[in-house]
């Protein structure tokens, strides 16, 4: 049986990737583990949002909106569960659901294998994710949050750079 198949949308030749068994689950757990553990020893690491990068990568690669949004929801809810009391369950869940859906939808229409495309998309999704989180906080939780700070801009760039290399690493988990 062929492990990959072609999806033709608007004459584009897009390959849908499948991954080794348990790869998505393992990558998700590892990302959450590193996100909560590494800042204990290296506090600057907290600027990286590994669960978001995992959501973006598997969304772009799997190219199935339903799978992408469900994976985003799961990762977001797990991240909510491991966060503090200012983060109710669903805050990151909603944001990552939308990111997972859009990443899968864009992945099904564009070739997102090039590092430059991945860099740009990661910055875009980071901004969107941040926007949804701030919007939810302001509208539903009545928590005053600023829309943009220099720190967020730096975080977006750092996550995009890390994302490019992380995605190359995750490419190795694909079935050939």
């Amino acid at each position, binding site marked *: 049986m062929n492990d990959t198949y072609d999806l033709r949308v608007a004459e584009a030749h897009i390959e849908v990737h499948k991954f080794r068994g348990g790869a998505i689950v393992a990558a998700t757990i590892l990302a959450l*583990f590193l996100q909560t553990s590494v800042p204990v020893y290296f506090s600057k690491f907290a600027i990286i949002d590994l669960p978001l990068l995992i959501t973006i990568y598997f969304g772009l690669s799997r190219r*199935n909106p339903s799978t992408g949004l469900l994976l985003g929801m799961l990762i977001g809810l797990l*991240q909510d*569960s491991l966060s*503090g009391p200012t*983060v*109710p*369950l669903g805050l990151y869940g909603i944001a990552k659901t939308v990111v997972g859906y859009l990443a899968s939808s864009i992945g099904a229409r564009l070739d997102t294998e090039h590092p430059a495309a991945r860099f740009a998309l990661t910055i875009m999704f980071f901004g969107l994710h941040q926007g949804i989180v701030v919007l939810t906080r302001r509208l539903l939780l009545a*928590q005053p949050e600023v829309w943009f700070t220099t720190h967020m801009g730096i975080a977006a760039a750092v996550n995009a750079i890390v994302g490019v290399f992380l995605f190359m690493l995750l490419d190795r988990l694909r079935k050939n």
Partner: protein
Amino acid sequence: MVGIPSRHKSLVLLTGVIVLQLLLLAVQIKRDSQGRLIRVWTVGAVSPFERAGATGVGSIRGAWNHYFALQNTSRENERLRRENDTLKLQINQLQSKAGEADRLAALLNFRQSHQNIPMLGARVIGTSADTASQTAYLDRGERDGIRRNMAVITPDGVVGKIIESYRDTSQVLLLTDKDSGIGAMLAESRIQSPIGGMGEPLLAMKYVANDDTVNVGEHVVTSGMDRIFPRDLPVGTVAQIKPGNPFKQIRIRPAANLERLEEVIVLLSLQPLELKKEAGTPAAEATGKSGPSQTQTEKP
């Protein structure tokens, strides 16, 4: 029955999933935040990995320190001998300062005056999974006697309080979190004001009137008014003062290094604690004036 076109199925699923999570959020906003089952499950699933990670790092550090570092032992010995001579001189100088004895005595007084209150050392094994909240996970939980609202400190100062206690793990809300608050006062003038976190490294002291005199570098200690932290524990030092209306805008630099916590002490009591003062050694003065190097002697 009208079927949903396949191209719209994912859009319907997206809408449904978001609506479900919005409902989930709404339920939480209505109720007081209690420990949810999903939190318990997730923490239970991830904490063994965090614990294993912390143990792994500890083992690697141990192996490095006890084996590889020995290669430089002779050079290290020479350096330590020289350092030892210097330190002996410093100790003689320090011993001549009578005030030192008072400060150390007052700090030790905390431990001595609370011998009946069990304290538990715990290791930090994880942090919050997001940057918006400032929390930490400890490797001790309900089985060790840790309960919600217990105070968490280090020998340097206040760290925060327990907000969730699981079987073998507990979660600490750090002073710097936006939801955090503590009863505090200026060590010298004894002006009382609550201190709150801002999600940044510095804390905010909110209710000090413009007429009151406050100096940069002044020490801040706990007031005991929150009934969680005992009185006169070091909280931090005044870092910035700006005039405000009607209160000064005062920023406090925490005494404990909250950005690099590895080990903490949990005060295993839910009763309000009172620091006993001995004649001639006011604890507030002592805790207010002593630096981190002195407080090391306090570590249980």
